[in-house]
């Protein structure tokens, strides 16, 4: 125990003496948490629309103004032919082209039927897919509108209409920030913990002090604990700061059991720090450790269920996601913060993360060699 006391004293002195790093650890996550959710938005806005209106009728005008008034579309320009509209798509000026055929209004009133043509620039798949869907939605809505205008209301609606009224549970307004902020906090916590611990032991290898440690009778697990505990405490500070930012800036406060949230974070930090320490036992320079950590971080982040749902991944990717600690954290954070879950709901996740923590830390201790 005395050994650990001396190790902790040393680590904390070094951390607090390195002001630049300390500020980075504290300020960077807070800033990122304030900035990133404002930009990382699932909603697609500013879709550039080219319009080819062959009809020039009040109805076509009405449709176009309805589209532009939705706020999602920006009218890029009117064209006289669909070829011209294609060209603007080719030049990347427009994302969507809408062609309103000649006789749109007349056919709509007389025949009660009319076709519209939409061309989508599918280079950016998300923008194209969502843009096309939004546009189709607006047109359908417009269709509803003229139908009620044109048909004489009868006691019995002649056409049965099924209208779907969704009830968005846990996030009634579908505010994407409620979804993104806990996820981004999860990633920031993983990055801070992983990088700090991965670089720390390697730094001692680089400057040669590890040799002086290895020649003392210090126990391996004491040394690892001496590295783990300070970063564990820092991780908790970063997480608390993150929770405060999401509360003060976004009004997001954990709906569920706060203690369950922290309990999970405590074990999660052990797992992430253990992973960092494991990498540092396999590398000799900070550069190597950095690159390896980046490699894993990319996988952790992109396959952690933050940007793409794990359920829709192919089978092999689901296996990787199951081996990815971040995916558990993202899920638990959303469960506790949005859904209001308690201990019972997160127990399976907690068990999995506890497994990660035990395996990674034992592996790191086993692979840390005082004698080569």
């Amino acid at each position, binding site marked *: 125990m005395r050994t650990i006391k001396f190790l902790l004293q*040393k680590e904390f*002195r*070094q951390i607090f003496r390195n002001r630049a790093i300390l500020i980075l650890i504290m300020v960077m996550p807070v800033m990122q948490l304030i900035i990133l959710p404002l930009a990382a938005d699932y909603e697609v806005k500013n879709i550039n629309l080219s319009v080819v209106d062959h009809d020039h009728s009040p109805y076509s005008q009405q449709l176009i103004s309805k589209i532009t008034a939705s706020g999602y579309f920006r009218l890029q320009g009117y064209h006289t032919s669909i070829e011209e509209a294609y060209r603007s798509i080719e030049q990347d000026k427009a994302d969507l082209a809408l062609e309103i055929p000649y006789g749109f209004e007349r056919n709509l009133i007389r025949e009660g039927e009319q076709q519209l043509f939409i061309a989508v620039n599918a280079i950016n798949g998300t923008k194209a897919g969502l843009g096309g869907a939004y546009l189709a939605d607006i047109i359908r809505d417009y269709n509803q509108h003229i139908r009620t205008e044109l048909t004489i209301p009868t006691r019995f609606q002649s056409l049965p209409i099924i209208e779907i009224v969704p009830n968005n549970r846990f996030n009634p307004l579908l505010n994407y920030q409620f979804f993104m902020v806990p996820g981004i906090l999860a990633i920031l916590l993983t990055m801070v913990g992983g990088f700090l611990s991965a670089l720390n032991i390697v730094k001692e290898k680089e*400057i040669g002090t590890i*040799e*002086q440690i290895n020649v003392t009778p210090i126990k391996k697990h004491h040394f690892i604990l001496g590295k783990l505990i300070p970063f564990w405490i820092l991780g908790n500070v970063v997480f608390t700061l993150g929770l405060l930012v999401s509360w003060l800036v976004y009004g997001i406060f954990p709906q569920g059991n706060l203690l369950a949230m922290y309990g999970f974070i405590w074990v999660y930090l052990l797992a992430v720090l253990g992973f960092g320490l494991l990498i540092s036992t396999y590398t000799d320079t900070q550069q190597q450790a950095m690159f390896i950590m980046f490699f894993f971080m990319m996988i952790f982040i992109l396959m952690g269920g933050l940007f793409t749902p794990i359920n829709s991944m192919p089978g092999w990717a689901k296996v990787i996601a199951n081996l990815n600690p971040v995916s558990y954290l993202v899920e638990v954070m959303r469960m506790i913060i949005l859904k209001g879950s308690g201990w019972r709901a997160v127990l399976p996740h907690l068990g999995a993360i506890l497994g990660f923590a035990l395996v990674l830390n034992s592996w790191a201790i086993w692979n840390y060699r005082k*004698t080569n």
Partner: protein
Amino acid sequence: MTRKDSVIKTEKLTKRFGDFIATDEITFEVLKGEIFGFLGANGAGKTTAMRMLCGLSTPSSGKATVAGFDVYRQTEQIKQHIGYMSQKFSLYEDLTVLENIRFFGGIYGLDNRQLKSKSEELVQRLGLQSETKKLVGELPLGWKQKLAFSVSVLHEPKIVFLDEPTGGVDPVTRRQFWALIYEAASRGITLFVTTHYMDEAEYCDRISIMVDGRIEALGTPQELKIKLNESTMDGVFYQLARGAKRSD
């Protein structure tokens, strides 16, 4: 001298890295309280041999005991009884003088009272009273080296290994450094020193000279000079080491 007086004893100690034999069947003995000079050209295998004796590196073959403990199985017991000062400066530069002393004293298991008295004594001996709160990184190299040596003997080890402790240090500080070495030896600590300075070799009780992984000569400086018919240690070293095939 009798057998029980030896604190380091090796027999055909060898370290291979793949095809490369860094240390080739070296056999020698170091006696208690002795200042043993471990000489050799760059790349001769001195540091590798020293690392094996310190329990930092496992030998490929051969036998060795340090302070009575086996270098294969009892490395952690060895570490309790030795001090080590590596080629690289290895105190924490972002800790102060006093913090370094207390940290290393602490992990060797000194209690608070010992820590207090030992650090006061050390600071006084080195004349660092006004520098105790300075970061070690801000000290001149000579002072750093003297501090590193003093820290390595803080826990009163049986043997101290010094790997080129005076490299890059000015002659006056080197003289002071050797005064510290003699003082430690007078307290019964055995010193195992590598150096490239032949005047320092003369200060040693006995020396060995390594060439290409093997020990080519071993004895007191006087004995070696007579044996090789040279008037200076420079001559002795040159005669043995010029045949070396490897260097850095």
